[in-house]
């Protein structure tokens, strides 16, 4: 397409680039399917990024780093769960608060870790598979998180579609009053979904600071959480479509970076705004017309539940 850009490299790079938003989007998708709108993805991601980074640096283990990232994201989401599920606060405002707080807190606890290199995350040894021309380079030379993220998409899809837990989760998101009347614990189910969403966003954040960049700087997630939210809408709340959305976005990011590196004539600023611009365009396309994404939105999305009489 453009001179100097190798397609195998491009595809393999986009798979890596899309991991953070894919993980965060899958988490948020589950949260929204349970009827909760958590706009704090950006805050949870960056908390995951800093906690994961510190954990990895302190223990020397990237794996423990990812555990720390998930815990960091989940811990922050617990505040959101408390605010919206127990104290019945407005979900939009609580999500924004989570992001504002997460950005501040992460920069506070991360300040003595600037400029350090984290331990590297191992590549999965596929042996001879990695040497297959083209395919080997595209598919079999990644770190384990790349494969785990795809596996998580599959697991989420299966959970939502085929298990009783998934059915109950969807029911709660569809009508919390009806679910309550049948005796389901709406609040408990939603809190668990929020924690899962937090952990996934945290994992995604840890991937940014441990693999993508890899180091710690303030505001490292640079809006990835918001893009993950957009991808959930793009995906019409369906896991496999979230994968498509994330890879599409990852592709654009990688392409514009490559164009920057290749010294394209377009100014750098316009290239680096392109992912956001394209996300908006995709949102518009998905929200309008016959395939209206909003029609698939869980009916109780964003509404608080209080069992009165």
């Amino acid at each position, binding site marked *: 397409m453009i001179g100097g850009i190798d397609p195998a490299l491009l595809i393999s790079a986009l798979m890596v680039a899309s991991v953070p938003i894919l993980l965060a989007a899958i988490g948020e998708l589950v949260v929204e399917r349970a009827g909760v709108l958590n706009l704090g993805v950006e805050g949870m991601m960056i908390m995951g990024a800093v906690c994961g980074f510190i954990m990895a640096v302190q223990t020397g283990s990237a794996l423990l780093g990812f555990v720390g990232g998930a815990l960091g994201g989940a811990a922050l989401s617990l505040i959101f769960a408390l*605010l919206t599920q127990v104290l019945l606060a*407005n979900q939009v405002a*609580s999500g*924004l608060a989570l992001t504002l707080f997460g950005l*501040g807190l992460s920069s506070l606890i991360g300040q003595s870790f600037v400029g350090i290199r984290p331990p590297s995350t191992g590549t999965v040894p596929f042996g001879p598979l990695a040497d297959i021309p083209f395919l080997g380079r595209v598919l079999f030379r990644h770190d384990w998180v790349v494969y785990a993220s795809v596996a998580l998409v599959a697991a989420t899809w299966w959970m939502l579609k085929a298990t009783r837990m998934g059915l109950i989760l969807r029911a709660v998101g569809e009508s919390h009053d009806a679910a309550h009347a049948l005796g389901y614990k709406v609040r408990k189910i939603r809190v668990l979904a929020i924690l899962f969403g937090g952990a996934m966003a945290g994992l995604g954040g840890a991937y940014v600071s441990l693999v993508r960049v890899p180091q710690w700087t303030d505001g490292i997630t*640079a809006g990835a959480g918001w893009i993950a939210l957009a991808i959930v809408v793009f995906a019409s709340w369906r896991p496999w479509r979230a994968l498509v959305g994330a890879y599409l976005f990852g592709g654009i990011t990688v392409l514009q970076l490559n164009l920057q590196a290749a010294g394209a004539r377009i100014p750098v600023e*316009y290239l680096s705004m392109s992912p956001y611009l394209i996300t908006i365009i995709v949102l518009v396309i998905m929200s309008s017309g016959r395939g209206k994404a909003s029609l698939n939105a869980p009916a109780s999305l964003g509404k608080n539940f209080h069992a009165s009489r």
Partner: protein
Amino acid sequence: MIRLEKRPSPSRFWQGATPVLAVVLTMIAGGLMFAALGKNPFDAIRTIFWDPLFHPQFASYSRPQLLVKAAPLILIAIGLSLGFRAGIWNIGAEGQYIMGALLGAGVGLAFYPADLWFIFPLMVVAGAFGGWVWAMIPAILRTRFNTNEILVSLLMVYIAENILSSMSLGLLRNPEGGGFPGSRNLSQYPAASNPEMIAGTGMHWGVIAALMAVIAAYVLLQRHILGFHIKLAGQAPRAARYAGVNPTGLVLLCMGISGALAGLAGLFEVAGPAGRISIDFNVGYGFTAIIVAFLGRLNPIGILLAGLLMALTYIGGELAQFMLGLPAAAIQAFQGMLLFFLLAVDLLSNYRIRLGYKKEAI
């Protein structure tokens, strides 16, 4: 067992008391955070909330800063609060602020070095227009294509930031600046500057605009049918349609007002306190204003007070950074915490907390 019981009518007492309670709780939790950072919490709280106003040595510098910092926060928050009341979530004020500053400064610099009376008024109009246009994009996408305005307005911030850096490196770069990024200094261009009006007060055109916005919003919400419709649309959207409110018009109006006010805030900032367009021109007023709007309970008078308080934490935070070595990020976390506590105690105005053994299946 603690239970929540919905009040028949919202409590007037708690509506006023919750922001105060939230501030107190934040001071306690913030104190704990400062203690965890190895600072004396009482020193830190005093440095943030007391010293900027009353410290014998620093107050003379920091007191005027109060108005300088509060003006953009109040101006933006007033606009946001109208939308938030109507259930229209413009969270991209930061981008509208940038675009207002860029367009306003651009218009002013286009006349450089002419000395004409209408340059500054024209810049004001251009600043409001810049913010308005930037807010109209998510507004029209929402009304025309049903696109989520929260996500679009936020994503537009990142686009605005890229335009800002492109402008300060390119089109608006000071030709006499020796190649450094950033525009000419508008405060050295009298026809286009927004100077401090009375020395030592921090008073500038932005402060006057903020006060006017507070008064206008107050009258609108208390006395005008449009304000009533804004409240109605937020509380009961279907009742609003029944009352004859046109949802499309309301989105365009609320987004437009908030965008224009954010743009104005940006213009007054670039022509006054900041002086010039640079890569790091925006410092997060657009996001902090969200906290201000909620802390003021979306009420104009409340926002006025909340804006002053939040400005105090900015100045006090800088002071604490200088005097106690408190990291700048601690203040950002502190502000976020304030919003948490505010949201948490907000339920007291609509629910009663009951202690008892009666348990309903929840």
